[in-house]
């Protein structure tokens, strides 16, 4: 259980990171708003509570690894990395600009703290499986976390990776689904239904948990549960709201790949209590 103070601190960090995401996207004039906002609570808990990592030494060998399989939520990742101290917060203004180390989708060779290149959906989870295998070979206590979108589950490679993770008994792997129920073309259930997610992963022999993806306490508990589950990889289905935190973005597929305008940014910051 988190103390009330820790809980408040994490919630404040998540709120601050939402502001950073919105500013970053507004400055860039392109990028993915909805899926960055839906994922940020889970990522806040990972980066500022659960994962062992050292921003002053990004290549620390015993660090836990995070793979953003839904690479279009790069702004959420960059906000976390800057907040943690991997690079300057000022760099966030360069998102998607020519010559920037902050590419439209995560690039391991350009950005400190980014573990692998992602952005083509379905590939991150396979790389996470490989990272978990490498950690086991090296007998490291490293845990590997990967965050996927629910629409991403439409990629067949995800299921190849799910099969492999269970086959190899990777209990050092935890996949989290940012289940916001929307993708570019609309509702996941209407474009190509991936439900039921839990029973599918259960059938693949994963340990499956489901949480409110904006409930920080619940996310922490699920991550702890995953760490204590031997012999199997864990899937956490985090039920989220696309665009969470900014009422006029919430539940809207149309904001999948659209940045906030200047006016929208102003209103959004007001909602987030930031002026």
């Amino acid at each position: 259980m988190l103390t009330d103070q820790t809980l408040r601190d994490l919630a404040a960090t998540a709120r601050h990171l939402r502001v950073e995401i919105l500013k970053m996207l507004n400055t860039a004039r392109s990028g993915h708003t909805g899926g960055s906002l839906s994922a940020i609570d889970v990522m806040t808990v990972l980066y500022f509570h659960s994962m062992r990592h050292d921003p002053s030494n990004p290549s620390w060998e015993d660090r836990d690894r995070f793979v953003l399989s839904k690479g279009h939520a790069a702004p959420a990742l960059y906000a976390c990395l800057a907040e943690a101290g991997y690079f300057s917060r000022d760099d966030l203004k360069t998102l998607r600009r020519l010559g920037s180390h902050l590419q439209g989708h995560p690039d391991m060779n350009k950005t400190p703290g980014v573990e692998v290149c992602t952005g083509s959906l379905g590939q991150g989870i396979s790389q996470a499986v490989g990272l978990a295998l490498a950690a086991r070979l090296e007998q490291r206590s490293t845990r590997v976390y990967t965050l996927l979108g629910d629409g991403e589950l439409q990629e067949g490679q995800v299921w190849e990776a799910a099969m492999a993770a269970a086959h190899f008994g990777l209990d050092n792997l935890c996949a989290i689904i940012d289940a916001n129920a929307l993708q570019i073309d609309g509702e996941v259930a209407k474009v190509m239904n991936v439900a039921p997610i839990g029973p599918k992963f259960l059938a693949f022999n994963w340990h499956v948990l489901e949480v409110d993806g904006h409930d920080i306490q619940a996310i922490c508990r699920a991550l702890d549960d995953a760490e204590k589950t031997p012999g199997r990889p864990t899937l956490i289905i985090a039920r989220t709201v696309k665009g969470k935190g900014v009422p006029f973005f919430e539940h809207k597929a149309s904001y999948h790949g659209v940045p906030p305008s200047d006016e929208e940014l102003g209103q959004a910051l007001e909602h987030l209590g930031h002026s």
Partner: protein
Amino acid sequence: MSEMIATRDAYGKVLVELGREDSRIVALDADLSGSTKTGLFAKEFPERFFNAGIAEANMVGMAAGLAAGGMIPFASTFAVFAAGRAFEQVRQSLAYPKMNVKLVATHGGITVGEDGGSHQSVEDLAIMRVLPNMTVLCPADGPETAAAIRAVAAWRGPVYVRLGRSKVPTVFTGGCDFVIGKGATLRPGSDLTFVTTGLMTAQALDAARILAEEKISARVLHLGTIKPLDVDLLLTAARETGAIVTAEEHSVIGGLGGAVCETLAEGYPVPVERVGLRDLFGQSGTAEELLVHYGLTPAHLVEAAERVLQRKR
């Protein structure tokens, strides 16, 4: 007759040796470990072998993750699947991030034989060559494969190595000192140059011997590295012999012939004849029958040499 070894056999053997020398070497396969010969590695190092099952895309992704975790993964399957089915995974998870993964694809070309066009790979060199950061190798024989695999293990970055199914004659009879990016002049000559890769190098050496009887002096330049191409050696051959015949067990589009033509057009244009599949898929047949049917024999190379000499100014 020189010794006959399948390049995949040489690969399997040297991979085991490398595994003994470096614990970071790991192997992956997609349910073809008996055919690709990674099974030899699996037998000796079961804990460092990962069978992805019939899932090439995930195999490539797992290899990328293993590399990101500090391992040196060798991932194998048939060329048609490695370069074709998993192309986008190779692009995104290996080439783009310069991941230290070695994709060693066996059953390249048409000498896969009886399985037919679906399993033959006549486009893999072109596909892999176009990827930034990707190094592309196509060894001629057993000894060169062994040396190339050693060089690849020491090389940092993604590499595609194309090997074959059939036994091929040894052309590097005195051993091979393989350097990535360097070609080898296997026979001197002044009237034209055969620029070859893979098993076509042995065919070119035979063709050069036939031409010698007609008093035509043919150089044989073997390029075991398709990318980066040994531009200096190629341009020297073009200047000194004034005519080029390329030969590859691959489409004439985009592979060795394409690479040579691009280089010569910019560097030193001379007449070129390209021997390879003329924009065709293969079909079932024995390896020998297919080489004859698709025009990849020493006799065909001799004809191409005669054509190119007529075009020489």
